[in-house]
């Protein structure tokens, strides 16, 4: 256990505060925006800026605290970069599919409208 210098603590504090502010902005957008497709955008702030700020702060702080290079907090944003698009894409397809089922007028049609004369229902 080493003593962490003050400038490192200042940088870590700055990164954490930035992450907190971005997460609040994202949650506010998620709460206030009308419509599901609009609401899908603000959480991307949390998934990218929020997680990267916290991971960088953790990397810096634990590297200085333990006196060795501690890169493991960076695993989390890398892992999220793989998993979050899958979830988001699935949920977007869910919303589009249910909208089509509800028969809203301004819904875009499927890219492949007909397949062998049979109506294609999968989104």
């Amino acid at each position, binding site marked *: 256990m080493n003593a962490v210098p003050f400038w490192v603590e200042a940088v870590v504090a700055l990164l954490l505060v930035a992450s*907190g502010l971005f997460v*609040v902005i994202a949650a506010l957008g998620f709460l206030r925006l009308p419509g599901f497709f609009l609401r899908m955008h603000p959480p991307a702030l*949390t998934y990218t800026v929020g997680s990267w700020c*916290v991971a960088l702060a953790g990397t810096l702080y634990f590297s200085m605290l*333990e006196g060795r290079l501690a890169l*493991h907090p960076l695993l*989390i944003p890398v892992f999220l970069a793989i998993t979050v698009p899958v*979830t988001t894409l699935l949920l977007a397809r869910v919303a589009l599919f249910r909208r089509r089922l509800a028969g809203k007028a301004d819904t875009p049609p499927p890219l492949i409208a007909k397949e062998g004369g049979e109506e294609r229902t999968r989104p």
Partner: protein
Amino acid sequence: MSPLLFYAIAFTLGCYAVACVMVLVRLLRGPRAQDRVFALDLLYFQAMLVVLVTGILHGSDRYFEVALLIALFGFVSSAGMAKFILRGEVIE
């Protein structure tokens, strides 16, 4: 730990708490099922951030593994719920 970092961590945790309450309101109010699933996914993620910041507060590496597990379970559950709404069953 200097008071600066301590108060910064307290402020960050307070921000996360406010954000969690906002997302919880959307989870309870969300007009359709996909809104609720997305809100649950975001809540999982904010809980993971809380765990990470608590790890920095206590100066312990152990919290990192908990955060990784929460992220993993959040992904699996959100993908499973989205698949269930989409197709009516999780594994076909």
